[in-house]
């Protein structure tokens, strides 16, 4: 049952939206179509560029009321604005961001997710905060953990079996001493892990232990700027090697969620530290607030 104020206004303003849209496209069709053909956002298939074209793709009147009220502002607006905002800051080529660019991205991410995200935390930073991500394998969580013991459900097996298990352990060793002592937190740390080039971090070679301690299971926000898919992940391995041309790696679960793949179709992600001193931000998918 819809509230009468809301019902009246949403109907009226949706109608106005359609009229304005029709007027805009009627008067400036050729220019807007030209932008459609030339905008990188549209080529990438993101919703961000479409939103900039006056929501011409969002036919609000065709949405069921329950959807338009509850999902449209959250599922469409917030993620598309994130994509659009990042598009305005990120360079066309995938390279290390400048300090100014990192600051702008930091502001966008912090604002979008309601947390503090930064390229540098406690005076430490990685070699970069924007780079190509490659596919990693599952990590052995405890002595005796194998592909047959690794998953909690058939669904997980179907989705994540193919990537297999890394032959060695992660950079910090096992996540738990035994199957019995494996906690939910340990599981999540392996499931949502990334491997970063800790060994290339400025200052790493001068203060190895201090840096290793800092990076161990350090939480980061990782974002695919092309589609806005984002996750809170943790650093649980070091790599990849410089010669690979990749800058970080993601667990099978991370890669699938971000919709990133390895090889010729590899793509970039943003990875920024989050300031979470009380450990209140959970690992896993996160959406703009």
């Amino acid at each position: 049952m819809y509230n009468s104020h809301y019902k009246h206004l949403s109907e009226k303003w949706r109608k106005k939206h359609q009229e304005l849209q029709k007027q805009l496209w009627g008067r400036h069709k050729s220019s807007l179509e030209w932008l459609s053909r030339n905008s990188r956002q549209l080529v990438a298939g993101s919703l961000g560029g479409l939103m900039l074209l006056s929501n011409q793709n969002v036919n609000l009147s065709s949405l069921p009321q329950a959807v338009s009220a509850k999902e449209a502002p959250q599922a469409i607006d917030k993620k598309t604005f994130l994509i659009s905002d990042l598009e305005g800051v990120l360079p066309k080529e995938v390279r290390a961001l400048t300090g100014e660019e990192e600051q702008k991205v930091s502001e966008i991410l912090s604002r979008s997710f309601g947390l503090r995200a930064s390229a540098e935390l406690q005076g430490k930073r990685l070699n970069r905060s924007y780079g190509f991500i490659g596919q990693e394998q599952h990590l052995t969580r405890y002595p005796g953990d194998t592909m047959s013991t690794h998953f909690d459900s058939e669904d997980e097996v179907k989705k994540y079996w193919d990537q297999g298990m890394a032959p060695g352990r992660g950079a910090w060793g096992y996540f738990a001493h035994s199957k019995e002592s494996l906690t939910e937190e340990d599981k999540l740390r392996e499931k949502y892990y990334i491997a970063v080039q800790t060994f290339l971090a400025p200052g790493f070679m001068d203060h190895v232990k201090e840096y290793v301690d800092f990076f161990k299971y350090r939480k980061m926000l990782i974002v695919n700027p092309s589609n806005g898919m984002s996750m809170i992940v943790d650093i649980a391995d070091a790599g990849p090697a410089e010669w690979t041309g990749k800058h970080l790696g993601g667990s099978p679960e991370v890669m699938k969620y971000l919709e990133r793949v390895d090889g010729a179709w590899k793509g970039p992600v943003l990875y920024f530290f989050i300031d979470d001193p009380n450990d209140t931000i959970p690992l896993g998918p996160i959406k703009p607030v």
Partner: protein
Amino acid sequence: MIKKHFYTHIIDTSTLSLELGEMDMASDERLHLLSLVESNIHQTILDLVLSELSEKDKRTFLMHVASSSHDKIWKFLKVKTKNIEEKIKKAADDLKKELHKDINEARLLSHK
């Protein structure tokens, strides 16, 4: 405003937010109405600005909008148009008046 647009700093929609805030509706419903306000203002202003520009200049303007280059937009509009800031404010004010009228109408309907 949900998103920062090039005109955000000269348009105040807080009166609409406040009025909607006082009405009896769920927060997601209010959020949806605010997104419609934003969208309607956005289309009105794009239409206004584009109507002031030549075909060639429309493309330059739209590319700046697509890349959220707010400084470039204003530099460009100051060269290519006259009194655009005042015109944008007026167009937004006219639309806001209409939206306020709609809100009052909705209130009256619920009292019948």
